[in-house]
């Protein structure tokens, strides 16, 4: 009548083992969010200054703030462009270099470099490459007579967003590619062999073997990658500071600027909470829609009734 079997006995140990990670997450995520909600209901303008409780005033102000609404739109575009483009490109590159070729190991190791260097290096690299007068991209294009006058990659409001998307993708695609490669490597070779024996076309092999095996990875990257993209701050901040004008001012950039250069911490935090709320809704919808992929717990213990 006892429930003391091998699996349930380690419940306590399992819980204890994951506890430190949970505590840390509570410390750096949950507490700041609670604290942030408190701040957002006040009139505090700089850290440590006097303030009073003003209820939802910051929120009402934000909903009428055209700049904030615009930044939400820019964030949405940014997330779509980065999240979608990066995942797709990374998947294609991973498929491309997954087939053996000479130098495969070299590519697999060094492709990751753009992700591994600080964003500051990325910013220096591309600001200089994109430079109007001495940047290599412009001088090359000019040398090949592709353009008459230099392209203002970061100073032209119509192009700056695309340039930043390119740079951010340049930075994250390698990492996503590596994750996909790892996932591809875990697809059992026999499945491909069986498919080849059955005469399946490459497309059918992809559809019926590769894709289903990649789906759990794709789903997690879809969620995490979208969240990562939505919170990108450093690259934008270092390359354009949200400019020219407001062309690349996504929510994180606007809020940071508002908090530390506009001296309105409480309003910026309120904006952050709104943004967070949107992301939470997105995450819940995403997880619910893909709930089968998120049952990641150990299936290894399921098959015991044999």
């Amino acid at each position, binding site marked *: 009548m006892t429930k003391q079997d091998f699996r349930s006995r380690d419940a306590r140990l399992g819980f204890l083992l994951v506890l430190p990670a949970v505590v840390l997450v509570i410390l750096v995520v949950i507490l700041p969010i609670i604290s942030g909600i408190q*701040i957002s209901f006040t009139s505090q303008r700089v850290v440590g200054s006097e303030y009073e409780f003003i209820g939802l005033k910051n929120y009402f102000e934000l909903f009428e703030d055209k700049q904030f609404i615009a930044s939400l739109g820019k964030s949405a575009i940014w997330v779509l462009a980065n999240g979608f483009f990066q995942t797709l490109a990374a998947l294609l590159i991973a498929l491309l270099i997954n087939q053996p070729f000479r130098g495969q190991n070299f590519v697999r190791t060094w492709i*990751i*470099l753009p992700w591994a260097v600080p964003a500051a290096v990325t910013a*220096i690299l591309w600001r200089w490459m994109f430079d109007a007068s*001495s940047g290599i991209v412009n001088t090359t294009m000019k040398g090949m007579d592709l353009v008459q006058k230099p392209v203002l990659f970061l100073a032209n409001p119509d192009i700056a967003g695309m340039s930043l998307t390119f740079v951010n993708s340049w930075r994250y695609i390698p990492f996503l590619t590596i994750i996909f490669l790892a996932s591809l490597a875990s697809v059992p070779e026999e499945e491909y062999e069986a498919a080849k024996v059955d005469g399946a076309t490459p497309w059918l092999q992809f559809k019926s073997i590769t894709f289903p095996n990649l789906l759990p990875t794709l789903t997690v990257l879809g969620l995490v990658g979208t969240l990562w993209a939505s919170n990108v701050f*450093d690259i934008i901040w270092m390359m354009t500071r949200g400019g020219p004008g407001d062309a690349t001012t996504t929510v994180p950039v606007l809020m940071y600027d508002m908090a530390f250069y506009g001296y309105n911490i409480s309003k910026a*935090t309120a904006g952050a909470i709104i943004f967070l709320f949107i992301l939470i809704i997105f995450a819940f919808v995403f*997880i619910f829609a893909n709930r089968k992929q998120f049952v990641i717990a150990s299936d290894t213990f399921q098959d015991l009734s044999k």
Partner: protein
Amino acid sequence: MKLNFSIFSLLRLFVIIMILFILLAPFLWILLASFRPNMELVRNQSLIPNSLTIENYVSLFSKSGYWQWIINSLIVAIYTVLISIPLIVAGAYSVYRTYFWGRNALSLFLLSVYIFPTALLVVPIFRIFNDLKLVDSHLGCALMNTAFAVPFGIWLLQAFLKSLPPELEEAAAVDGIGRMRTLIQIIIPQVAPGIIAIAMFAFIVSWTEYLFAMTLLLSNDLHTLPIGLTGIVFGQYRVNWGFAAAGAVGSAIPVFLLFLIVGRWFIRGISAGAIK
């Protein structure tokens, strides 16, 4: 047929080379630039340098806080790695190899870290860390980095952990070996390549981190490389590109060395050893 096939291969090779070029050429370009005088970089637009100089490196190494930043960055990264690994290994083992109610929800809860708009909530973080006396300390910075390395690190380790047969733990249990001992002496040695990979992941997360370092490290002599670098490069009215290039190279070199030594373990470590 044969001809078609080789055309396809050539095309594929060409695309791979293009991708590699886009991803890696900027590094070579910046390396070259770092040895050119700044004035030449601004005026001369040719690819081939007229003259080479090490003046950029001289000023980086001797006139900036480069060495201090490197040491600070290493301290934070090592803290991050040392704290992350036990948390990731224990968390991953818990989520993927033990059986308790709610472990699925817990693993999702951990991933919720990435919902957190980092740039937006630095203020409350600053307040909380201030109360905990973790402001202006490398440890505090490392704790932030750890919190952002752990959830994805746990996920990265899953392929490896899932590939181990459950009989390993069962055999140990029948032999009377305690669960902790099983984890430490049997499971951990088997996932060693995965641990190398997550260590690298945590290192890179910390090495590239900008925002928390900028917020939490107030004193100049605690600044990490990204903070110091952006300070001297973008802090000036006109960017000294030669000097900036040297700084970029100086920041990339440690990562380059890391990958030179253990880089090939990275994919291997997150794909259950499936790569030959």
